[in-house]
């Protein structure tokens, strides 16, 4: 799980172009949207695409992302449970 979390942080930094950031800068349990990283709806679409490309998880409804993307940890847990690759 810890390994997946670290890998996910790197993938988020790359997908969302946080050029000056390292995985250590992202708090595993901090909210991704609003406070914390301050992501928006475009980022949510990027995260949905990231899960599809990297883990073979398809979300049909963008609203479903809300619960999954609460934090890096919730996202990692969802990926762990649903990944197809």
């Amino acid at each position, binding site marked *: 799980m810890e390994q997946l979390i670290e890998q996910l942080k790197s993938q988020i930094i790359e*997908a*969302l*172009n*946080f*050029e*000056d950031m390292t995985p250590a800068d992202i708090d595993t349990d901090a909210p991704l949207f609003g406070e914390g990283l*301050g992501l*928006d*709806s*475009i980022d949510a*679409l*990027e995260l*949905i*695409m990231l899960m*599809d*490309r990297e883990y073979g998880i398809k979300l049909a*409804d*963008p609203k479903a992302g809300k619960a999954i993307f609460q934090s890096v940890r919730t996202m990692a847990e969802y990926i762990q449970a649903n990944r197809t690759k």
Partner: protein
Amino acid sequence: MRIAITGIGAISAIGRNCAETLQSLLNEQSGIGSMRVLGSVHKELPVGEVPFSDAELKQMAGIDLSEPMPRTALLGLLAAREAMQQAGLQNTDGCAFISGTTVGGMDLTEQHLHHYAQGQALDHIRLHEADSTTRTIASHLSPFAFTATPSTACSSALNAVLLGANMLRTGQAKAAVVGGAESLSKFHLNGFNTLMILSHEPCRPFDAKRNGLNLGEGAGYLVLEREEDAKIRGAVILGYISGYANTCDAYHQTASSENGEGAYLAMKGALEMAGLTPGDIDYINAHGTATPNNDLSESAALRRLFGSQMPAVSSTKAFTGHTTSASGGLEAAICVLAMQHGFIPANLHWSETAEGLVQPVLHTEHKPLHHVLCNAFGFGGNESSLVLSLAGTDLSETALPSSLTPIAAIEELDDSAVSQMVSGAEARRMTPQMRRIVAAARMVLQQTGITPDAILCETEWGCMAQSMRFLQDMLDNDEQQLKPTPFIQSTHNTVASLIAILTGNHGYNATYAQHPLSPSAAMMDIRTQMALGQIHSALVLQFDEQVESWDQVLAHVGDQMTPIAHAYIYKV
């Protein structure tokens, strides 16, 4: 003076011309169905296609089959020609052709990009540019004194109407053929798909269970002229332009604000120019794309403005699909048909209301319409509204001052100034050249301390770095698993709307695709608006970026990209 409409032309999934369009509307016959012409792998997505191949369209338009021509130009030519024939406009000396598009020649580029590298299909390359689509259409119509290509995403065609009207009111055109054209492309079908806003069923505007839009294609044009000129020519007057406004929601690149601020301001401005009150409007042709976000936001704006006096509302996108840059022209033509024949088009596929949504008209209603409002909203919050009337409204007119010079300019910026003006967090989605133009805009605004009434941008190639990134991703990955951000940032109007969002500017906002040989549309726009007192200050941007892959393509035809990031302030 009064601005008369003397001709209309329309082509879309519901008809090759205005007569067929009218029949489909009256019969409640939608044109949305399975994809047959567009060569996308996403056959699961219903579309509003014009059911003819490019070769068939060429035949209809009398174009030689061997002549390379974007599908957008073919659709535009057919509809513009219909409008001019109805108006009986043959002599176009001193006339303007203003045609909005965003796709331009993208359909050819996505088919032939791999050919270019091999030195093939080279006569297609320059057709990529959106303004060349307008020039191509014009070259097959008649010699025009002025051409321009508004490119504000889905409000492009309505903004063409605004510029044409302003040119008539300032004596800059004897007549103006205005509207827009847009074909389907794999590029924007996939782009909208990455945004997860395409429905897999026929779209249901304003319905509780609406789940996205269907893309459509088509073109729509109006011929505008001064009432007295139309009467001298003996032309039949179909209706009048009585008010219009363009604003910016200044909220988000691809979403509308919850209270519909930009839409509210656009509709309010259009009514004010027309000297009308909400109770005077008989019908609203809503933008109504059937995305959860648009319909709720537009409903909020409608309720704010019209309150208990809500007129009949419908979205005709359940007939045609969302024809994106063409929608304002096509739907303005539909509004003229509705006034002429006294009916309100149905809002198809509606079954259930939900809190906050307006209640649309479900079936064709026959009644006289005196004033109708037509909305077109685009990415970046580019919102425009138009009031059309059966009887004319007097609009002010004035002469144009001979010239206009900027009071401040930023034409050079070093890298440290750029990183000072644009923070890392803000810049994470911007290409280096976008950072440069944002920095230049901020600097010139800071220098002058002006909050501009208008923000305009002119660009030859648009946001080409992100366009090529998305296109290459799409071609390499067979239209699967594409990143949304490059598409969101690919439209020509990204720069002007981004600056409005960053500075919270709800004023006039427009972008023109600008061929090097065309006269400056942005300057014509602000000069006419300043003369008419619609704006008193403007931020004008010139933007182009250098993209290695496209530069290599252009080298085949002895051309190259010229990067530019200039910002100017004009003031009266």
